[in-house]
């Protein structure tokens, strides 16, 4: 543990600390951010009315559109004189959002990411290769400052140039890899193509996040790279990476509750759900100065894992995110997460976990094609085996998703590999009927 005084503090002390920090944050945004003040006034609430953590549920939500409307600096709660860093979301789903960090924010972010790396077993003795993109995306620099805070030797290689990444990993004796899980898989594949078995390298742990991934993919990454692979979580609107991370127990991600209050709500009724039930994750930041968010709806789907963890951390755990409400596809009225498809594929021998979902219209109906790569070691002579594989994939996906789909087997390595977040869905439904 990097900061046991906080990470293992008693729940009573933690809740007292949360309430104090929450009150300060509410005062700060009410005084300094016009849109919060207007929203609170409209809802008839005032920071002074929040006397317990339960009172948080009486406050209005913040959504991504609020941040978009405030573009670029409208929701900053610190003057630009105090802002030392600006990051921005990728803007793939609309107008980009901008977030700002004070010197204190950057300092705390370093601590939180150092906690994350430490929970993968990293120490000052380690050599950390950061293959997240650097730049406006929070991934690269977020992990970077944490790695330096931990005292590890930090390699800021950023994303891309995959063969060089392998060479660096080998030559520099990298022990910890930080990347998106899909990129980590590409690194493993590329290493083998170059005649390097990653399991022979000193690499021992990976911190993977920024996109949803499955338990089966973890097994695959751990076997291919010979490492402990943990899931890390964060989003730029709340901080960036460092909001929550798995420990070595790999059973849920400990939320850094001394800096963020997590709620799980029913996205339809907007009411909090009991611990253990699935819903949309909502975060309130309680130490951010640059751009605090109050009850920010993440669109991520998860739940609180009930019970305590054997690692000694007292922070509650959220289950690995099973999808975003943004990524959620509504196909013939059924909610589908692409990660469910990946979960199925990684459980079927003979197929690679690379896939693409192609949505089309046939008449007025949605038609779903799932393109699945046949594994490179398949006995390609066996047409019966190929047809059996195709039927099995179709049946298992249909049973997991509760919709019928068409499976198309495609040649090994023919689906485009991603160097960042994988693009799994091609939605052609607006392009007319076939």
């Amino acid at each position, binding site marked *: 543990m990097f900061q046991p005084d906080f990470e293992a503090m008693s729940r009573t002390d933690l809740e007292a600390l949360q309430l104090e920090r929450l009150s300060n944050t509410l005062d700060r945004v009410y005084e300094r951010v016009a849109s919060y003040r207007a929203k609170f006034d409209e809802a008839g609430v005032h920071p002074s009315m929040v006397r317990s953590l339960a009172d948080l549920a009486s406050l209005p939500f913040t959504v991504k559109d609020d941040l978009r409307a405030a573009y670029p600096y409208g929701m900053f709660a610190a003057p630009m004189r105090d802002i030392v860093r600006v990051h921005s979301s990728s803007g793939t789903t609309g107008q980009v959002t901008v977030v700002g960090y004070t010197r204190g924010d950057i300092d705390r972010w370093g601590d939180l990411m150092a906690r994350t790396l430490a929970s993968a077993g990293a120490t000052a003795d380690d050599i950390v290769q950061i293959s997240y993109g650097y730049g406006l995306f929070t991934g690269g620099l977020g992990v970077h400052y944490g790695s330096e805070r931990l005292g590890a030797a930090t390699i800021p290689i950023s994303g891309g140039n995959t063969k060089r990444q392998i060479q660096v990993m080998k030559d520099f004796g990298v022990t910890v890899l930080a990347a998106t899980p899909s990129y980590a898989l590409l690194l493993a594949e590329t290493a083998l193509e170059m005649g390097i078995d990653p399991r022979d390298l000193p690499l021992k742990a990976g911190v993977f996040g920024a996109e949803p991934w499955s338990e089966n993919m973890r097994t695959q990454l751990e076997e291919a790279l010979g490492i402990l692979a943990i899931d890390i979580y964060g989003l730029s609107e709340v901080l960036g990476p460092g909001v929550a991370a798995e420990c070595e127990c790999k059973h849920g991600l400990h939320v850094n509750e001394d800096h963020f209050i997590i709620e799980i709500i029913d996205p339809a009724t907007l009411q909090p759900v009991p611990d253990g039930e699935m819903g949309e994750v909502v975060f309130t930041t309680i130490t951010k100065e640059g751009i605090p968010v109050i009850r920010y709806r993440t669109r991520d789907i998860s739940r609180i894992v009930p019970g305590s963890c054997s690692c000694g951390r007292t922070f509650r755990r959220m289950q690995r995110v099973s999808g975003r409400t943004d990524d959620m596809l509504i196909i013939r009225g059924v909610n589908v997460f692409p990660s469910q498809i990946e979960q199925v594929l990684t459980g079927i021998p003979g197929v690679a976990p690379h896939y693409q979902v192609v949505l089309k219209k046939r008449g007025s109906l949605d038609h779903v094609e799932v393109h699945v790569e046949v594994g490179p070691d398949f006995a*390609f*002579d066996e*047409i019966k085996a190929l047809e059996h594989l195709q039927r099995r994939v179709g049946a298992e996906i249909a049973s997991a998703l509760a919709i019928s789909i068409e499976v198309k087997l495609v*040649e090994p390595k023919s689906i485009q590999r991603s160097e960042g977040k994988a693009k799994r869905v091609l939605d052609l439904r607006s392009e007319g009927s076939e």
Partner: protein
Amino acid sequence: MIEQVSVFLENKSGRLAELTRVLGDAGINMRALMVADTAEFGVVRLICDRPRHALQVLEASGFGASVTEVIAVAVPDRPGGLADVLESLGSGGLNVEYAYCFVEPSGDAAVDIFRVDDPASAKSALVSAGIVVVEPGALYVAD
């Protein structure tokens, strides 16, 4: 045993041409080629020189391929020639998954390629029935 190269192909135009070009550029000569197709994909089976090298070349060019053991038989060029061969396999309880044939310009027999579950027993059943089993060296340059 004859080593046949089997290649998985999506039903995409030009893909078979790409496959044959890759082999041609690698200087690999083909002796026989058979395409089995379904509505969704095809499997190309070929007998060629240096099949293991061909496999490496194909995989390096992004094809899904594997080497399969098959049996080659010299079938007498007369009515009932093929029936004799199949009967001797059938009486041994051996099931033929697929077969294709081609004519060697040098010989007076057709060459039939058989894929069976158990190539070793098939071979001995054929030999004991007096049927000529063709060795790899007679068909292609082995590697």
